[in-house]
C-alpha cells in the first residue's frame, strides 16, 4: 500500500503503524465526561464497508500522525491529512 504523505509524498505503508478509527482523536475530557462517553471512546468504533477515516503513524518516517481516508472495500486512499491539523479543526487545543 502507498500512503500519500502530505509533506513527504507517496510512501510505502510498511513505514507506518495503523491505529484505527480517527474518532480516537475525539477523546472526552475525563473530568467532565461520563463513564459511558469514555467507554464508547475506548471501545466503540466505526467499521464501515467503504470510506473510513483512520489514524496512521509514520513511525519509520517523520513521526507524523496522519488521518488517512481510505476505502475498506478497494483500499483506495482518498485523502491524507496531518492528524494535528485535523485535531485542531475538530476543536482540540491544549
Amino acid at each position, binding site marked *: 500500500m502507498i500512503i500519500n504523505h502530505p509533506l513527504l509524498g507517496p510512501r510505502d505503508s510498511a513505514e507506518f503503524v495503523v491505529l484505527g478509527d480517527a474518532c480516537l482523536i475525539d477523546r472526552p475530557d475525563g473530568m467532565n465526561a461520563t*463513564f459511558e462517553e469514555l467507554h464508547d471512546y475506548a471501545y466503540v468504533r466505526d467499521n464501515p464497508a467503504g470510506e473510513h477515516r483512520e489514524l496512521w503513524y509514520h513511525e519509520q518516517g517523520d513521526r507524523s500522525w496522519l488521518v488517512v481516508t481510505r476505502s475498506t472495500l478497494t483500499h483506495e486512499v482518498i485523502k491524507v491529512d496531518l492528524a494535528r491539523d485535523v485535531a485542531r479543526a475538530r476543536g482540540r487545543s491544549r
Partner: protein
Amino acid sequence: MTQAMRIEGGMIDRERTLAFSWNGRWMTGYQGDTLASALLANGERLVGRSFKYHRPRGIFSSGSEEPSALVQLRDGAAQEPNTRATTVELFDGLIATSQNHRGPLAFDLMAVNDLLSPFLSAGFYYKTFMWPKAFWERVYEPLIRASAGLGRLPMQPDPDAYDHGFLHCDLLVVGAGPAGLSAALAASRTGLRVILADEDFVPGGRLNAETHEVDGQAGADWAAAATAELTASDRVRLMTRTTVFGAFDHGTYGALERRTDHLADAEGRPRQVLWRIYSRRALLAAGATERSIAFGNNDRPGIMLAGAVRAYANRFGVAPGRNVAVFTNNDDGLRTAEDLGGKGIEVSAVVDARRGNVVVDTIGRGGIRAIRLGDGRRVEADCLAVSGGWSPNVHLTCHHRGRPAWNAEIVGFVPGGELPPGMCVAGAANGTMTLAATIREGHEAAAGLAEDLGAKGSPGTPAKAVDEGFAASPFWQVTGLRKRAWVDLQNDVTTKDVRQSHQEGFRSVEHLKRYTTLGMATDQGRTANVLGLALMAEAAGKSIEETGTTIFRPPYTPVAIGAFGGRARGRHFRPFRLTPSHKWAEENGADFVEAGMWLRAQWFRQPGEKGWRDSVDREASQVRRSVGVCDVTTLGKIDIQGRDAAEFLNRVYANAFLKLPVGKVRYGLMLREDGICYDDGTTARLAETRFVMTTTTANAVLVFRNLEFARQCLWPDLDVHLISTTDGWAQFAVAGPNSRALLSKVVDDLDLSNDAFPFMACAECSVFGGTPARLFRISFSGELAYEIAVPARYGDSMIRALMKAGEAFDAVPYGTEALGVLRIEKGHVAGNEITGQTTARMLGLGGMLSRSKDAIGLKLSGREAMNADDGMCLAGFRPVDRSVILTAGAHFLNTGDPADMAHDQGWMTSVAYSPELGTSVGLGFLKRGKERIGETVRAYSPVRDQDILVEVCSPHHVDPDGVRQRG
C-alpha cells in the same frame, strides 16, 4: 543417446553442447534448451507420475503452465522439488530426477491406485476411514500421508542467498511478447521510465515459437531487434527471467527475478531477487495459455498442447514425435500441421472437431503409440498435438478480486470490469488473439498511458504484421466415452469426477474446485480450469456465464519461500542492538540474553563457578554487601521539552507530575485508556522546560508512539517536543552500600551527601575530569543506588573506569539475572507483573492513581470488575519447606480445594533464589492477597510436576521500610 529427435533450426546454440543427468543417465543438449526440450531431443517421453493414480506423465506444454513434467532439480541441499522441466534453462552439469513414484519411474508400484480408481472417485476419503475411531491417526492417515505430496524437500537449510529489492517506474509492462515489446517500445520513445519483465530467458513470447513475420522479418528476429532498442535506452529496464507474480495495492507489484538458477554455481550471489515494483501504471501483456480437450485416455505421454509442439519444433529444433497427429477445435491446430510439414515431420492425421471428427481413445502405456478416431479408425502416432483453444492470462487482473468475463467469440474468459487501479491489458491477455491486432493494441495502450502521464515524446508507429486465421469453437469433450477422460492432469480429475461433484450437490464452482481438487495442483489448473467449468456448465445445463468462475490469487506462478524471506535468516533475521559496554562484557565472561532486539549481559561467569546460579548469587550478594555495576542503557530514554512539558506528563502518567521540582526524579505509572497498566519508569526534571523520561526496555517504542499520539492528536496546542535518546547515553546502575563512595571517586565536584543529593535527586554533572554526565539517585534493588549516564561514545571507556574505581570496594558487574533477584527480593514489579492485563490495584499501586486530575486511563480504571473485592493483588511467597525452589507460572489453590479452574486463586509471576534470605522467594497475584499474609496456599504446577505449600508474605522480602535506599 545422441539427441535422436533433434532437427534443423531453432534458437539454440549448437556450438555449445551441455551435459546433464536425467535419473542418473547423462545426456546432452544445447545452450538455449530448456530441460524439457533437451529431454525431448533425447527421446525421453515418460518424465513423471500423476498425483492420485500415478499415471505415466510426459511433457505437456512448453511453459510455466506445465501440469505434468515436474522434476526434482539439482541435488543435496540445493534440491528443488516440483520444478517444471519446461521452464528450467539447461546448464552444463544439470542434475534432475523424476518424482512421486515407488520403484523405477517406468514401474511405479503406486500405479496400483489406477486399478482401484473406481473406489477413489471424487471425495471418497470424506466417506470412509471413520471406524474404528482410533484408527485415523494410527492407520488410515499414515497411509494417506505416505502417498501425499509430489517432490521431496531436502531436510537441510537452503544453501543459497536471496535478496529483496525495490524499483520505481512510470510504466510496468508485464510480458515481452508481441504486445509487450510493442508497448515498451512506444512507452520508452515517449520518455517514460519503463520496466519490461518477462518470465522467459529470451524476450519475444510466442514470436519465438511461431513462424509469423513482423515488419517483413521473422517474428523472432523482430523481437531481437526490439530488445536491442530497449536495452540501449537508459529509461528502460528490461528484466528477463522475471515473473511478475502479484498485483498489490496502489500500483505495487511483486516480481521474482531468477538471477542464478540458469547457472551451475551461484558463487554466493543471491539466487533470486524478490522485487517490490512501485509503478504509476501497469500494462498486462501476459499472452494466453492453450488448453486441452476431454477425450479417452487424453493423458498419455506424447499428448501435448499444439502450441507446445510448434514451440519445440520452431524454437528448440526438436521433433516432438516422428509421426504426429493433431486434434483441434480451432485454426491453431492446423497451423501445427503446416509448421511440422515445413520441418519435414510426418503428420499422420489432422482431426478437426469442427468438422465432426474426434479422437475417442489413445493407445500406449508409457507413451502414446496410436489414436482411435470416432469412426473407429486407428491412426499410428507417437505424438498427439491437441488444441482446445486459448485462455487469456487474466490472472493479475483478478488479484484485486475482479472477476473475468466470458467471451463467447474467442471462447475464453477475458479481463472483467474492475481491474486493479492503474492497470490496463493488451494483446492475447485481453482476448485479442491475432498478431497484427496484438501489436497495435500494445502500442496504442502504451501511447495512451504515456499521454495520460504527461509524457511528451512521440511513441512512433506500431510494427506491421498480418492477422492469422483464428476460429475457436466451444467444443469441450468427446461424449459417450467408455474410457476415462482427464480434465486436471496433475490431480487426476476426470470428467466423471466433475459429473459426480454435480450429482452430489457440489454445484457452485467453489464447491467443484474444493470437492474434486480441480485446479488446486501446482499448475493451479492453468490448462484445466476452463475445461472443468465448461463441463460443470454442461452437467448443470447452464451457460458458462451462469456457472461463473473461480478467481486467481497471487502468485501467478509459485515462488520459493526463501525468496519471500530474503536475507532475514539465522543471526540476521532481525537486527541486534548492543549496549556500549558490550565489548567489555564479552571480555569479562558475560553470557548474553535477548531483551527485545537488545543483547544484555545476563551474568558474568567467574573462574571456578559451576553454574549460572553461582554467578548470580555472587553478584546479588556483592551488591547488597558492597557495590555492583549494571548496564541499564537499554531502558528507553525520551527527551521531553517545552513550556507545557510538565502539564503533558501530568496527563500521560496516572500519578501526579505537575509539581515535580527541578533536580528531582519521580516514579511514574502509565495506563492505557482502558485503565490497565502498560508501562512504568522514572522521569527526571533537568530544567523548568526539560524532562528525561525512562521507559521499560520492552515498551520504549510503544510509549514514544503513544506520547506522539497524545501530543499531536489529543492536545495539539501544548508546547511539548519529544525525541528519543535511548541510544545516545550509556547508562549504568551503581548499587549497594558503597555506591556513594564509589561514585564520589567518579563524579567531578558534586556533593553526594544524603542531604545534598537525597533519594530521587538528579543532576547534570561531569565525570573523570570533564566528561559530561547525568546522575540520578534511583534504586531498583532497594539498596543505596544511583544511575550514571555518559554520552554513548564514552560508554566502553566508562565501564572500564567505573570498575577500576570500584576495585577498592570489590565492585562487581552484575547482569539481568542478579538485577531480577534484587528487584524480586525488594518487591518491585516488572514485565512478569505488568503484563498488560494487570491493574494498578492488582500491582498494589492503586494508591498512586490520582483522583484529582484527568489522565489517560484513570476513568476506565474505575470499572466494576477491575475493582472487585475478591480481586487479585500482588503478594510475596516463600516455600513452607525453605529448601524447595519455587516455580514461576504455578497456580495458587486453597489447601483442600480441588485442582480445577473454578478454584484457581491466582498465579506466581516471578521467582528467584534469594542469597540474602537463603531461600527461594516469589511474587505473584493472589485473590485478596493483601489480606492473606501469613496464610498457607498450594502452589500447583503440574507441568513442572510440582505441588507445594507456600506461605503468603509481603512482596517486600528485603528492607520493607525502604531504609537502605534512603540512607
